[in-house]
């Protein structure tokens, strides 16, 4: 410590001042801009941003069981089964259309790594991100959610956010 130059205020005192100021800041009432940085979670909740990748929601009607999401999933955590069905024709007098109907659309959230590739590749706008995050389960097997559960989360899907100045208008999804 031979090379220690004497500072104006000893560093030891400066350190004490920093902790003291933080304490004062935390103890200051909320209305004066004080308060703790933490949030008392079950009582207050933070709102996640619009784009937050909380959980994947499924709009079942749009899904055609094309398997693109299951194929692009890096973790192999999407399981799809379906069957073909005759649907009423689009135009009056047309032939009945063959459509794919979903029997099973499961996402195993124990495997999912929330990369969002499935949502991105979906060509039919059937998968969406929802910022919902409170769906933990005591048992890991219960994290395999089926299409009903995924459909329920559709309600929590927000509108896409406005873009910053200078961005190009987006086309499609």
């Amino acid at each position: 410590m031979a090379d220690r130059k004497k500072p104006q205020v000893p560093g030891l005192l400066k350190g004490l001042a920093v902790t003291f100021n933080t304490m004062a800041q935390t103890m200051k009432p909320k209305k004066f801009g004080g308060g703790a940085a933490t949030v008392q979670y079950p009582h207050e909740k933070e709102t996640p941003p619009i784009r937050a990748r909380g959980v994947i929601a499924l709009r079942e009607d749009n899904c055609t069981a094309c398997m693109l999401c299951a194929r692009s999933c890096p973790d192999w955590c999407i399981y799809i089964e379906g069957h073909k069905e005759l649907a009423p024709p689009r135009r009056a007098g047309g032939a009945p259309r063959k459509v794919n109907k979903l029997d099973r659309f499961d996402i195993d959230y124990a495997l999912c790594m929330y990369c969002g590739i499935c949502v991105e590749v979906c060509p039919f706008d059937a998968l969406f991100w929802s910022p919902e995050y409170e769906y933990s389960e005591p048992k890991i097997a219960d994290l395999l959610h089926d299409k009903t559960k995924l459909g329920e989360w559709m309600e929590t899907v927000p509108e896409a956010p406005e873009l910053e100045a200078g961005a190009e208008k987006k086309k499609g999804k």
Partner: protein
Amino acid sequence: MTDLADRQKLSYIAAQAADARLNVELETEGMTLNIGPQHPATHGTLRIIVRLDGEQVIWAEPGAGYMHRGYEKLTEVRTFPQVTALVNRIDWLGSFANEVPFILAAEKLMDIEAPPRAQWIRTILFELSRIANISLFLGDLGVQLGAVTPVFMAFRDREHVLNLIESVTGGRFHPNFDRIGGLKDDLPAGFIAETKQVMKKLRNFCDEIENLLFGNEIFQSRLRGIGVIPAEVAKQYGLSGANLRASGVDWDLRRDQQLPLAYDKVDWKVWTHPDGDSFARCWIRLQETREATLIVDQLLDGIPSGPIMAKVPRIIKVPEGEAWVSTENPLGEMGYYVVSKGDLGPFRVKIRSASFNNISIVPWVLRGVYVPDIISILASLYFILGDIDR
């Protein structure tokens, strides 16, 4: 810093003495202490076996690999977009920065370049993840040295940065936002204004840490002259990032190579320190955090408008070839050597992660130090387990 040479000589002598004691076996029976794999100082699962004479280390051997996830093998069964989601997890604190070199390597092979707006936003997010990463280092440094408060300050202010990253990418830790040819999405409205606010807070955080830790005489006496790595040795071991710059080597991949990123558009400074000791490494990181906030501020002012995605085919096949791209990640030089055979996925990806090299110097640098210095040297070398083991 006048007696720098003396301190280097002292540590050199201590290392020599440790060697001698080990070789001549004059010492009394030493004690083998096993630090880790689960130990508060290893923030993860690094194991260090040290042989002690009293409290002095005569021999140390790190044992990595408790978190090896085989990413190099995994990349071989994944397509290029899937690998992006994977490499996020290498250095999980600065995860966006992991994506960039990989995407740049793939773009190099495909011979496309992201549009300017995408490059700027990439650079902004790159620097934001650097801030998120290093601010946690600054807090953790305190914990390693016994000060409990800085880490909470770090978490408090890093939260703002993570919120920013989340508002853009949707992921706090694993953005998976970079795409071959550009970015997934544009910035949401209000991002620029908010980021400027946050950068102010971060600069304030840097000041607080400087007062709380770096100015503290105890802190300085713990780190000054400890764990000196001369520039020659640092280069031999392939140290990179702040560890290399702390040894006086002026080498920063953001400046010293031409990549399609916006670093050459802003005015910034590469910090170096001649000492090469633990204090220098920590000090460089502190300065770099501050510098990064300034870089972000400047970048925000000049984002060009335009598209964020170049024209790329919907199904990405990367032409045959080999490419090496490395960037200056928060931990150091992070690079990907991508070999493609024209398939959907890479044929081989060699991931050169910074911490692997940074930690391989540990047996060299730990000789002759005391047990508490093991911790401070490890902390100052700054590793992330995922980055060592991949």
